[in-house]
């Protein structure tokens, strides 16, 4: 199996789906000749032509809104939002329209759109090219929100998203794009949306995360093992609706839970994870449910020392894990 980067897995998934189904097409800013500002769509306009890889006008509400219309008609659009930070103008189309079409038409219409957006920081992107915006959408029934952390998951989940009959927001941590590499089969496969995945088995503490910070957790778990502490690491993968069973199971397994994400703490995805645990397996707990998250400030500053201060890293995670283990 070839070892490829996260972003190559994304490209591969789109290419395969476009070959498989003529209804799949891409629209967004700079996705065509430029191949996307992160190069996720590179080579696709050459293979599929500018009818299926559309460089749109600079207008996110239209990118999503036009995609919704096409999806309702029967196409399988993949809308690229250049940076997750710029999804805001499209919130009305996503929340009021895509998410509610099936429900409001009593099942008559549905909206199989996939909306890809690179999120997260650590790339000197400053306030508006670094945000984690997932929490905005993890209270919207009708939507699915996915955020893979490995190339393998990225390919399988993106293919599942494209084939899914409901709108899927697909968040890709931009720091993972070239940093994270992994084995990815050349063959066609899909992974189930809505299922979390145990990325490491362990017995002493449970760590729950997604995206870039999942890798920090795994690195920290590695080190912690040397100290004789065994960490169980759960990758949420789907952020909405959450895999509540897997969460409860992972929490109950060790009784000590640390939730880690880059997004601000208050009101982040970790809140619901904690709430699920506190509701479903409170008596299995041996320690308070801890969260290690980005600070509650509007976004990540540009200046390197501030960016560093904001971002989590393996050391910060290690410390929190160790502290919990020793609780």
């Amino acid at each position: 199996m070839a070892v490829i980067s996260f972003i190559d897995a994304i490209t591969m998934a789109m290419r395969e789906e476009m070959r498989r189904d003529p209804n799949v097409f891409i629209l967004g800013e700079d996705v065509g000749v430029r191949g996307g500002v992160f190069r996720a769509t590179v080579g696709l306009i050459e293979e599929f032509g500018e009818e299926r890889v559309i460089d749109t006008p600079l207008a996110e509400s239209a990118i999503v809104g036009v995609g919704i219309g096409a999806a309702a008609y029967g196409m399988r659009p993949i809308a690229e939002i250049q940076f997750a930070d710029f999804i805001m103008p499209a919130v009305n189309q996503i929340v009021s329209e895509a998410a509610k079409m099936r429900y409001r038409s009593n099942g008559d219409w549905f909206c199989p759109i996939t909306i890809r957006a690179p999120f997260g920081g650590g790339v000197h992107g400053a306030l508006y090219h670094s945000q984690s915006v997932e929490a905005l959408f993890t209270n919207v029934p009708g939507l699915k929100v996915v955020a893979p952390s490995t190339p393998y998951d990225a390919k399988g989940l993106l293919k599942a998203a494209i084939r899914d009959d409901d709108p899927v927001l697909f968040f890709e941590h931009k720091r993972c794009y070239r940093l994270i590499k992994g084995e990815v089969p050349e063959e066609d496969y899909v992974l189930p949306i809505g299922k979390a995945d145990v990325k490491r088995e362990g017995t002493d503490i449970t760590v729950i995360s997604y995206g870039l910070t999942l890798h920090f957790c795994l690195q920290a778990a590695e080190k912690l093992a040397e100290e004789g502490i065994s960490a169980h690491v759960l990758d949420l993968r789907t952020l909405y609706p959450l895999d509540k069973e897997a969460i409860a199971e992972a929490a109950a397994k060790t009784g000590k839970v640390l939730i880690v994400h880059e997004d601000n703490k208050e009101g982040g995805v970790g809140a619901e994870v904690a709430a699920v645990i506190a509701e479903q397996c409170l008596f299995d707990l041996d320690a308070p449910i801890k969260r290690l998250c980005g600070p509650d400030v509007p976004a990540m500053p540009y200046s390197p020392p501030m960016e560093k201060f904001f971002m989590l890293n393996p050391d910060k995670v290690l410390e929190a894990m160790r502290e919990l283990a020793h609780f």
Partner: protein
Amino acid sequence: MTTKRHEQVGLTDAQVLDMYYYMLLARKIDERQWLLNRAGKVPFVISCQGQEAAQVGAAFALRKGKDYLCPYYRDLGVVLVFGQTARDCMLSAFAKAEDPNSGGRQMPGHFGGKKWNILTGSSPVTTQVPHAVGIALAGKMQKKDFVVYTSFGEGSSNQGDFHEGANFAGVHKLPVIFFCENNKYAISVPLKKQLACESVADRAIGYGFPGVSVDGNDPIEVYRVMKEAVERARSGGGPTLIEAVMYRLVPHSSDDDDRTYRTREEVEEAKKKDPILLFGQYLKEVGLMDENKEQDLLARVQMEVDEATEYAENAPYPAPESTLTHVYGE
């Protein structure tokens, strides 16, 4: 006898009579819903009154079963021409399970139905405009020759989604007709506080396609400009923006009291140009209608509305727990 203007635009006698029927049907369904509302039987009404000529004129220029609609909440006249019945509308007004638009989930006026090529609509205004563009884009990709009609009020033409949708359609020369029903008010806010341009049609040049303003009280004129726009769209000529100028004859909705923001004189003056009145007169002038025929037609419409009301009133509600269905596909 006056000249048959309708023949000049390619409408047959049968067609204009049909148009009149649809206009009347829309009006009578609407009037009945107000009565039902005032009697406490339906919680909400949103009206087409005063806009039937534009709606029916526009819909007649489209091909039912082929072209697509992304209408707005007042477009009762349009969806009737496309196949919805009085019963469908009343089922929606009573929020009954059989309502084909939403199974009673949405307020009346939120049209939708795959079988009629009517995309499901929502309340936030103007979101349907990019959808129409997306359907047109899909049609172009699949080399279909349908056109897409989308409508909205003049107030709603100030939303960003109008601009973004129109621009996208202009760039891609897509077969979309942007139909603005300018009824002079957005709830209580008069035209001059909504727009500073002479006509909403003036906005088209900014998207590189034609804009036309037309008397929305005249279904024949509306048909004429729509037909032109439809033909342009179908032959690859791209979108058209049409502004149909009219007047909302009743309050914004059953929750509104229009006496707070417009004089009775103004409304009475507008009623003199009630499109149903004017079109009835025209049909009489060209000898297609007389008192008797009109009475027959009215009776037929009334009967449809009565039957629809009775059926809908007695139809079952959706089951409470069905609230949980259709969140995601199976």
